[in-house]
């Protein structure tokens, strides 16, 4: 199985991974504290612009990736809107009780989850794991021991996927069937987990021995093949985010079209 996606390299790929991570986390936390619905609306438009035009992937893939977040949007929107509390009733039928407040609260929550999805995707699609760990080792003095454990673990993942597949075939050949009861589900988990864990632990152990045999010492000084530094792109990215936030703030104060300003929790 190969899970390779090809993309064009855009300037976003060249932003220092640690800077990118920190800025996106700051934006993420900042947005949690803001409850102006128009701000979120404008911000999601801005992010979509970055997502679709600056990550360098084909639209087919980009749309496919947003699918789970759209599902989350719909589910959080509906659960909030249909059953929320409020004074101005818009529609009521049986259990459903849609009020103006709950409608906007649901919309707000849905948009928020899309924003978080997009932030995560923008980061994940434009950052190689190897560069991220090299950068955190160089810029933030992350211990090589930890960084390399992650990088080695990432190498294990496709092997595990392959093994799950073989395991499924082997169970078929040996005529293993699972019932749909709780104990059947437990059995299924056990049959898959034990061999996969045993294999992975063994492999991780072998890998760590091989790494130490190659004179890897988790703490000692080392040089870096990839020199990851700060550059122009980091400044661009910073400016882009600040401008984006300013524009959203401006639009939010001057062009609000929904009757609600803030969504109070």
């Amino acid at each position: 199985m190969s899970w390779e996606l090809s993309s064009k390299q855009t300037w976003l790929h060249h932003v220092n991974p640690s800077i990118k991570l920190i800025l996106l986390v700051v934006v993420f936390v900042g947005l949690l504290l803001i409850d102006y619905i128009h701000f979120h609306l404008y911000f999601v438009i801005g992010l979509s612009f970055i997502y679709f035009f600056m990550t360098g992937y084909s639209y087919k893939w980009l749309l496919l990736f947003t699918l789970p977040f759209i599902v989350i949007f719909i589910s959080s929107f509906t659960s909030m809107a249909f059953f929320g509390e409020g004074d101005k009733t818009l529609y009521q039928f049986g259990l459903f009780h849609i009020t103006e407040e709950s409608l906007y609260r649901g919309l707000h929550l849905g948009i928020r989850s899309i924003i978080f999805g997009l932030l995560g995707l923008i980061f994940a699609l434009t950052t190689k794991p190897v560069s991220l760990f090299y950068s955190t080792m160089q810029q933030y003095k992350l211990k090589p021991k930890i960084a390399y454990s992650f990088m080695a673990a990432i190498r294990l993942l496709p092997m595990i996927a392959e093994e799950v597949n073989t395991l499924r075939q082997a169970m078929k050949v040996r005529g293993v069937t699972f019932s749909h009861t709780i104990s059947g589900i437990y059995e299924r988990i056990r049959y898959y987990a034990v061999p996969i864990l045993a294999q992975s632990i063994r492999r991780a152990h072998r890998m760590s021995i091989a790494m130490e045999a190659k004179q890897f010492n988790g703490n000692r000084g080392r040089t870096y093949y990839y020199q990851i530094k700060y550059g122009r792109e980091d400044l661009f990215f910073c400016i882009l985010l600040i401008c984006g936030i300013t524009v959203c703030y401006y639009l939010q104060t001057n062009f609000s079209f929904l009757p609600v300003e803030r969504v109070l929790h």
Partner: protein
Amino acid sequence: MKKLGDFMAETAVSVEDLKVKFPNEKSFLFKDFSLSVTRGEKVLLVGPSGAGKSTLLKILAGIIPNSVEVPMKCTDCKLPNRYGYVFQDPDSQFCMPYVDEEIAFVLENTQIPPDDMPTLIKKYLDDVCLSLPDIHTKIDRLSGGMKQRLAIASVLALQPDVLFLDEPTAMLDEEGTKQVWDTVMNIASDKTVIIVEHKIEQVFDFVDRIIMINSEGSLVASGEPEVMVHQCKYLFSQYGVWYPSVWQEKLKNDKQCVEVLLPEVTIQQLKGYKNKKELIRVEEVTVNRGDWVVITGDNGSGKSTLLQALAKLIKTKGEISYSMNNDSNYYGYMGYVFQNPELQFITDTVYEELAFSLRNSQLSNDECDRRIMEQLNIFQLDHVKEKHPFQLSVGQMKRLSIAAIAITRPQILLLDEPTFGQDAANTFRMLDYFASLHRSGMTILMVTHDKNIREHYANTEWKIRDGMLTDARRLYETDYHSDRMGVRQSVMGT
């Protein structure tokens, strides 16, 4: 002259009165074991499976006890300052995803300035003749032989005095094996090399000394290869080492069996798919009852995929008709043994593993028990029947995986590289068993790289190239026959 003599005698690696005991084991793995290797010497360590050859190699390198804690003691030892260690499994000795990053990992560890790295990486790749169009290539894309050569390149970056090779070709096909040994001979002429290997044919001319240890962990013989092969041949065969004439001696007694031309499986216009990609195509071919088919071809050409298609494990188009009566118990009719035995164990003990296969049979409990004991006996697993399958040695696991499938006596047995990485003793034991199943009328289809199985056991060969069955021919005593008879059976792809 004297200087040269001194140089020759200088010890590179040595241990004296070594004692090693694994926790929870009753006996010592090594007891009062001494060994010394002079600088520049090429040494081959052989011995039966489980004798502790790999453990010894790790002790000589210092991996035990520095990285792996095993209780051990020795009165005196000299370990190399700089060593390189190449492991058996190509997939679990790299920690980075790309070729250049993997070598860079070693260079970083030894604190080479980053500006020198690209040139050095190219140099080490050239040293092992691994010419890649782009050094930033995914390691997953390399064949097994290339991966092992990359492993050698990355240990060369450590500039080792001593090179330890721990069965580096056990998981490789013939071509990969040759590539690896050619590389070793190229790069290691001035280095001390210590090799553990049970296929000794390729390294026979390269090594200066063969050291043989027995299952009690004592040194039984040591000497020049030619002398050893003449004087201690019985030990080689006793310990299951692949020495040059082992096949001829094995085959003296074996003989082939009868043939019936009764179609067992007929395949027409078969296509096998994985992730919607067509990976294997067969135009038309028949397997007769009692055939022993070997499926050969390069790595990744689609041999295993063909087996999976026949066993209905992947999506197929086209027609496969079997000579079975009803479709209900398909996997009772056809047994499939995977390459990795660990992934097909289901229960917690060896005994239950066999019992599981018989749970749907109509046999009485006594009859089941009798059959299981018989099977355990044939596969030499009776002494471990209460153990968990994961506690077995690699050879035992492999035997158990075959025993668990064969106990239901399927009519067709599909085997994916059953003898891969096994020593001679295990291989012959398995082949004897397959031969007895075959004599009793079972049809066998086997993916293998082993020329000797093709020559001495199989009666039909299917060649796979680039996802297509290009040739299916009957094999007879001489090539002349096989060419003529091939016409009747052959399938011509377009």
